[in-house]
């Protein structure tokens, strides 16, 4: 894999923006595995292809998975208890 990538949630703001129509990276989420509460921007992004996985910066469990395949977009957010947005 090429190395000219960002490796945190800030880097995938563009992809997520096109799903949520808003900036999700500044939203605080609670990790379903360990309870850490942090902005998605602080999560770790481990790979771009074939999708995006954001993992908790504290325990490493997946918070969010997004895959584009076969003209469908799959979003798995079972690793998040909630997302809290400010002043929408």
């Amino acid at each position, binding site marked *: 894999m090429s190395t000219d990538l960002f490796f945190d949630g*800030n880097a995938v703001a563009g992809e997520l*923006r096109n799903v949520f129509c808003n900036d999700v990276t500044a939203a605080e989420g609670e990790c379903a595995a360990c309870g850490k509460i942090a902005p998605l921007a602080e999560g770790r992004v481990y790979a771009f292809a074939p999708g995006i996985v954001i993992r908790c910066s504290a325990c490493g469990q997946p918070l969010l998975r997004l895959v584009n395949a076969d003209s469908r977009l799959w979003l798995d957010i079972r690793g998040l208890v909630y997302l809290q947005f400010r002043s929408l």
Partner: protein
Amino acid sequence: MAGTALLGRLVWYVATVAERRQETETAWTLALTVPNWPGHEAGQHVDVRLRAQDGYTAVRSYSIANAAQGEHLEITIEQLPDGEVSPYLAQTIAIGDALELRGPVGGWFVWRPASNDPVQLFAGGSGVVPLMAMVRTRALSSVRPPFHLTYSVRAPESIIYAPELRQRATRDEGLSITYAYTRTTPPGWPTSPHRVDAALISETAFPSSKNPISFVCGPTPFVEAVANLLAHAGYDSSRIKTERFGPTGGTQ
């Protein structure tokens, strides 16, 4: 803008390269003209899309380097030896060439000139780019809180924006800059090469009682080391914003 209303989907803009500037041996700034660019905040990114003739596309996220100025947008690219996109942007692309980009994106690692709380910036290598956008935005703003930039570089010749930083250190009132050289220092430098450490932070950072906001950007090991140092020094962790890039275990 961000956080106040639904932003909607992103659109791709066609940017044109207006100028190329070599910053260091491996870093170039591309000044772009982006018709209809909506403006941006300091610390935000753009996604750059390159398309090969066979239809293969590659998208990469780059920090915006300049303060918002109409249709003018600057990104600074550090060329990575095994990069797929950065060698093209650094070496091959020419003035007048077109580039697709979308943005601005990211609402977390952003400094808004709205508060007078002091700001401390910690840059590791090319992590200086979004922090430079903050320094430049501050200079154009009527709100100019105290800023301190701590810039960790391998050697004097690795400093991106070196002439501008030299000028700003004397001209921008309330801005101070500390360099940490990790491999080679300038001649006559008072210390031997070292990384950002607890001593440097206690000497140069704003006291935690001033409630500064901290922005830390660089390779993952640098960001984690500095964020831990700040937390141990008693800074409120909710006011330490980080942005990591590069492979985990990368060099500083």
